[in-house]
């Protein structure tokens, strides 16, 4: 088969539906990545317009441009959009688009999940946009502190839009994070061991692990605050055993890592683009990997530095102040590695490099002001002033927007297959750089003079007029620069001429593909034996196009790729992907219906939506798998591999493991909240403890243990040629018993509306009950699969996945029941 025939055959297998209908059914990472990026930059535009409205308001004293109610919505939505609807989705979009190409594979691990994540983002973002257009947008600041955002002080629907809309959008981030973790660890070109992974993949892996552990506390906080607002369960009301500081802990447990979740992918872009711009390789690859991992972990020890003025004892403050200073070290290691890379190479002042230099200047300044606010006495002075706003913009704009603009200009030829024709970009960079520093240097200054953040106006005699005016004019200069980038990119897309492949002479695998890349990425998969496979091997694209790699002989209808062992890069399984489907958009729409029913408080719709999600989820999984064994398949280069459905550790198992890690963080945060309220909140102990019940405790624990053991027995039975149904039936019975025990607990919880103790127990039991029902549903599903012949001793991948859920259920039910009953037992 020649290269052209192979290309046509692969295109038939991998292509999306033609025209706009393809947007709704595509699951291809190239399409979804582009959709993510287009949508996130639309939101960047909206957030930017809001920023200009804020600067217009503050340009002059006693301004009547907008009133305080509208102004509150403007700054809240500006922060919310930039953080949740622009920065994170831009990382998601870029990584979705690039990772499979960089890793030398054909798609991400779970293509339908990629698409589902996008549609959750689209619908959730649309919900937020709707609130903005109709003047009912959130107005409590982007970190939504209660009691301001509680039912008493924010009775309207505005806050609900934030709590429900952002939770909906966060589903997208969790989906992407699970996807990236599995893809980076398992979906790489054969031979690509951990030390040969592109540096961007390391950063994406670290960021994804951070999303899995950083987002659940915020999701929990949002759930608790919404439940308080909707049903009166008092988690944050001090007189009823709650504490508004609990929100701050949960929010900043997410919020500080969030800063690094935004910065690290951008640092990945810098570490990828900078060496190419300097005609060399990255200095200290291993040090940079270690620094990224260190930064990720240390960032989880900083959350209280946002709470230095809340009255926490000095020792507690000192822990976080020390951690906040320490985090500068791995950041510094990366910065010095980049400087060393420039020193080692021959920097060329191309457009991406200009943005990288802009990043250096801005981010280092932001880092230094970060060390200033990490010191408690300074923070006490600067807290809640414009100084802090300026600092965070230096870190986020410097640490994210400049690198992303560098990345966009760097990968634009890959996206479009064209070379730049107009030279607007250089002028745009100059305007952005000057405008940014004019805006935010001035804001540091006015903050030190005492201007509070989020004030809608100020008196003329405050002495801030000229500084604010300079800041506003500079802000508009920056906006003009950013608009010019947009025009430059659009012009490039529409009118530029065809460019050569790999115009930067980079060594990474994404430049091996055609520009723009075909839907299948690689006609055959490369075998990688060095970190920059393209460097010194210019014939690699031709050889892969001729089918000289793995899977070079495409099967007629299968979308195929390989997985590898995580550390060594040794190929282990053949993966057959699902094809185009509208299931992701349908599932996202029904998920949206669930959130909408909560938002508009049409609660009869909620169970219908839940049923819809369960039914579509069932269909989603059912449509996978086979009713006959496939056995090892020839994958080229003399290698035969079993399909992933005929293994114990399938991609689904890995995805489940990472999802459960996020889930466990959610549960851990709930336990932390319980302990926090118990030890710190006023109005404890509660008026009455839960009446302990050994029967309830015994049935619950016994039920989940039976559920777990039964599932294992079923897996063993299947492997030895038995049906496995009997073990699953025992497991299902155990799960039902546990669900009954948890339901009883929920009914017996003392006055959940009267004290945070009862409210917390109700949520704890509800969480466990939800998981019992979910695990029960999976056990029923597996019984149905056995009956329909979807399992065999070879086709065993589904048993360990259900086993993981059953084991997780055991852990959370035992812990939930113990913490619920123990206080009453102790007296």
């Amino acid at each position, binding site marked *: 088969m020649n290269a052209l025939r192979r290309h046509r055959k692969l295109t038939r297998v991998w292509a999306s539906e033609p025209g706009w209908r393809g947007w709704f059914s595509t699951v291809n990472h190239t399409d979804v990545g582009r959709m993510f990026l287009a949508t996130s930059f639309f939101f960047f535009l909206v957030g930017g317009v809001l920023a200009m409205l804020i600067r217009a308001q503050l340009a002059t004293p006693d301004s009547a441009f907008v009133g305080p109610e509208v102004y509150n919505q403007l700054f809240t939505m500006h922060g919310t959009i930039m953080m949740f609807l622009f920065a994170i989705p831009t990382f998601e979009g870029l990584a979705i688009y690039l990772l499979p190409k960089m890793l030398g594979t054909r798609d991400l691990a779970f293509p339908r999940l990629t698409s589902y994540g996008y549609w959750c983002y689209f619908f959730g973002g649309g919900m937020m946009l709707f609130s903005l257009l109709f003047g009912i947008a959130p107005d409590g600041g982007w970190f939504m502190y209660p009691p301001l955002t509680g039912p008493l002080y924010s009775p309207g629907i505005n806050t609900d839009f934030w709590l429900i809309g952002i939770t909906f959008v966060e589903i997208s981030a969790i989906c992407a994070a699970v996807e990236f973790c599995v893809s980076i660890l398992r979906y790489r070109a054969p031979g690509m061991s951990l030390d040969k992974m592109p540096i961007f993949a390391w950063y994406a892996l670290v960021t994804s692990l951070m999303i899995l552990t950083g987002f659940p506390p915020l999701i929990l906080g949002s759930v608790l605050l919404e439940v308080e607002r909707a049903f009166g369960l008092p988690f944050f009301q001090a007189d009823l055993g709650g504490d508004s500081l609990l929100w701050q802990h949960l929010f900043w447990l997410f919020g500080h890592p969030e800063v690094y979740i935004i910065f690290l992918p951008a640092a990945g872009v810098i570490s990828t683009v900078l060496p190419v711009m300097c005609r060399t390789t990255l200095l200290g690859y*291993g040090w940079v990997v270690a620094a990224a*991992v260190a930064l990720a972990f240390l960032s989880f020890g900083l959350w209280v530095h946002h709470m230095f003025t809340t009255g926490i004892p000095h020792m507690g403050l*000192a822990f976080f102040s020390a951690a906040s200073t320490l985090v500068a070290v791995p950041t510094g290691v990366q910065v010095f590695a980049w400087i060393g890379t420039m020193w080692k190479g021959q920097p060329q002042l191309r457009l991406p490099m200009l943005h990288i230099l802009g990043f250096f200047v801005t981010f280092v300044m932001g880092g230094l002001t970060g060390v200033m606010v990490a010191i408690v006495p300074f923070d006490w002075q600067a807290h809640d002033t414009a100084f802090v706003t300026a600092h965070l913009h230096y870190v986020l704009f410097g640490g994210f927007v400049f690198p992303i603009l560098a990345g966009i200009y760097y990968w634009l030829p890959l996206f479009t297959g064209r070379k730049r024709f107009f030279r607007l970009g250089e002028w745009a960079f100059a305007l952005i750089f000057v405008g940014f520093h004019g805006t935010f240097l001035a804001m540091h200054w006015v903050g030190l003079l005492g201007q509070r953040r989020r004030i809608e106006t100020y008196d003329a005699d405050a002495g801030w007029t000229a500084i604010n005016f300079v800041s506003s004019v500079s802000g508009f200069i920056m906006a003009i620069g950013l608009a010019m980038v947009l025009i430059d990119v659009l012009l490039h897309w529409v009118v530029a001429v065809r460019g050569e492949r790999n115009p930067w002479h980079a060594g990474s695998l994404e430049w091996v593909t055609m520009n723009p890349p075909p839907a299948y990425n690689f006609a055959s998969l490369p075998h990688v034996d060095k970190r920059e496979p393209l460097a010194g091997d210019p014939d690699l694209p031709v050889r892969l196009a001729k089918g000289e790699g793995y899977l070079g002989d495409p099967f007629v209808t299968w979308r195929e790729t390989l997985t590898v062992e995580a550390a060594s890069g040794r190929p282990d399984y053949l993966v057959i992907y699902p094809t185009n489907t509208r299931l992701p958009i349908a599932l996202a729409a029904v998920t949206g219906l669930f959130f909408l029913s909560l938002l508009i408080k049409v609660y009869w719709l909620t169970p219908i939506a839940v049923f819809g999600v369960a039914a579509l989820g069932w269909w989603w999984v059912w449509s996978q798998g086979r009713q006959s064994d496939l056995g090892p398949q020839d994958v080229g280069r003399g290698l035969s591999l079993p399909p992933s459905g005929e293994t114990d550790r399938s991609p689904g198992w890995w995805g489940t493991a990472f999802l459960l890690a996020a889930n466990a963080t959610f549960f851990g945060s709930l336990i932390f909240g319980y302990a926090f309220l118990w030890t710190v909140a006023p109005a404890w102990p509660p008026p009455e403890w839960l009446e302990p019940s050994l029967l309830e405790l015994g049935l619950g624990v016994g039920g989940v243990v039976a559920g777990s053991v039964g599932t294992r027995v079923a897996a063993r039975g299947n492997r030895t040629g038995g049906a496995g149904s009997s073990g699953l039936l025992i497991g299902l019975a155990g799960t039902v018993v546990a669900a009954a025990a948890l339901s009883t607990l929920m009914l017996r919880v003392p006055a959940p509306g009267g004290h945070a103790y009862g409210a917390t127990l109700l949520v704890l039991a509800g969480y466990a009950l939800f998981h019992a029902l979910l695990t029960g549903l999976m056990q029923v599903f597996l019984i149905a699969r056995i009956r329909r012949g979807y399992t065999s001793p070879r086709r065993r991948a589904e048993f360990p996945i259900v086993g993981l859920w059953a084991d997780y259920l055991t852990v959370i039910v035992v812990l939930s029941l113990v913490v619920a009953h123990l206080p009453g037992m102790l007296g």
Partner: protein
Amino acid sequence: MIDLLRILIAPLVWLAAFSGIYGLHGVGCAYGWSEITVLSLSLFRVALLASWGATVLIQIGLLLALCSDRFGSGSLFVRRVSVTLGWVGLVAAIWTLHPVAILSSCS
């Protein structure tokens, strides 16, 4: 996956210890442990110092294990990264928790 665990283990242990000792600090302050005296030190201070010491010892143990032939990685790259992060864990344990030795506990 064991190699990934080697890379993550030291900072993970630091994070768990850091959160745990911060939690212990909250519990001790809430229940007035600083009022109970043992060997002319408050019980609270002893508990905090013991936890800090245990954390540092565990980090030293991890670092030695990551350097050893028995527990360290066979891959040179993973060994270097994991040992570097072993040092990160140890330094972080000493530096971020040193306030237990020098600051007043609950004021």
